[in-house]
């Protein structure tokens, strides 16, 4: 058995391989501009990952709401505040029920101490200074 002559161009496989060799030698080369574009995108993706977009700044009320735990937390706080106010009334009236308070005659004098031990004289002094 004889070996095929690698230069025998009448052999279709060898001839075709010669064309492939020419094709490999003439491979399209990337331009510097193309490589720069690819690298630019690589760096941009890398930078985005390293430094994610900051959250938009919240307004003061949105920040406060968030600190209170959202609308749910805020409504709970409001309920607790109103309950405290009512307990203050109830203590003053001594009856212990809201019904008793609401049923009281209109002319009955009601003293509501929102700030116990409040010194109205001290407030007057502050207003004078201001």
């Amino acid at each position, binding site marked *: 058995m004889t070996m095929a002559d690698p230069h025998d161009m009448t052999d279709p496989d060898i001839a075709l391989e010669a064309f492939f060799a020419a094709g490999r030698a003439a491979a399209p080369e*990337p331009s510097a501009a193309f*490589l720069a574009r690819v690298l630019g995108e690589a760096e941009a993706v890398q930078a985005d990952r390293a430094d994610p977009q900051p959250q938009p700044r919240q307004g003061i009320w949105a920040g406060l709401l968030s600190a209170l735990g959202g609308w749910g937390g805020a409504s709970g706080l409001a309920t607790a505040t109103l309950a405290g106010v009512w307990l203050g009334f109830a203590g003053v009236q001594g009856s212990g029920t809201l019904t008793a308070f609401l049923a009281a005659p209109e002319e009955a004098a009601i003293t509501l101490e929102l700030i116990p031990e409040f010194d109205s004289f001290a407030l007057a002094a502050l207003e004078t200074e201001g």
Partner: protein
Amino acid sequence: MALDLRSDVPDEALLVLYANGDPEAARTLTLRLAPLALRLAARMLGDRTEAEDVAQEAMLRLWRVAPDWRQGEAKVSTWLYRVTSNLCTDRLRRRGRSVALDAVAEPEDGRPGAVAGLIEADRAAALEAALAALPDRQRQAVVLRHLEGLTNPEIAEIMEIGVEAVESLTARGKRALTAALSGRREELGYDNG
């Protein structure tokens, strides 16, 4: 651009470095892999501008997938060949025809002292024109096997078909190329030994 300074570091390791923010890894991977995507796209599409767009898109997908890359599942180059191939197939479908024959480079006129190079360029141009006339899948298989030098199992993975189907595609492609180029062998100096 500078040479690949990390030639001993595999692509997979460089991709991990890239995902961790290493700027040199971005540069090395670009130099190593972008030419590969561009070569395949140029040979599949026959249009340099479109090939650059496709190669850039394939590389962008690589940058985005880097943090989720699963080590040991696929070679980075195989993955990139597959993404590039799929993007080319999409373009060819949209184009509704095969390779842009009019975009295949015509050989330039002879310049003194460059005869050997010219013959080589003529041969490459003849091959390019013959490749452009092949059906898309045959062209893809022949390019990956004989111009990119990949193995049949690698091509099977890229084209998402069996190895036997790859062998069939390359065999049919080569027969068609031989028929197309047989009339040009003498003209291109191959029959002179």
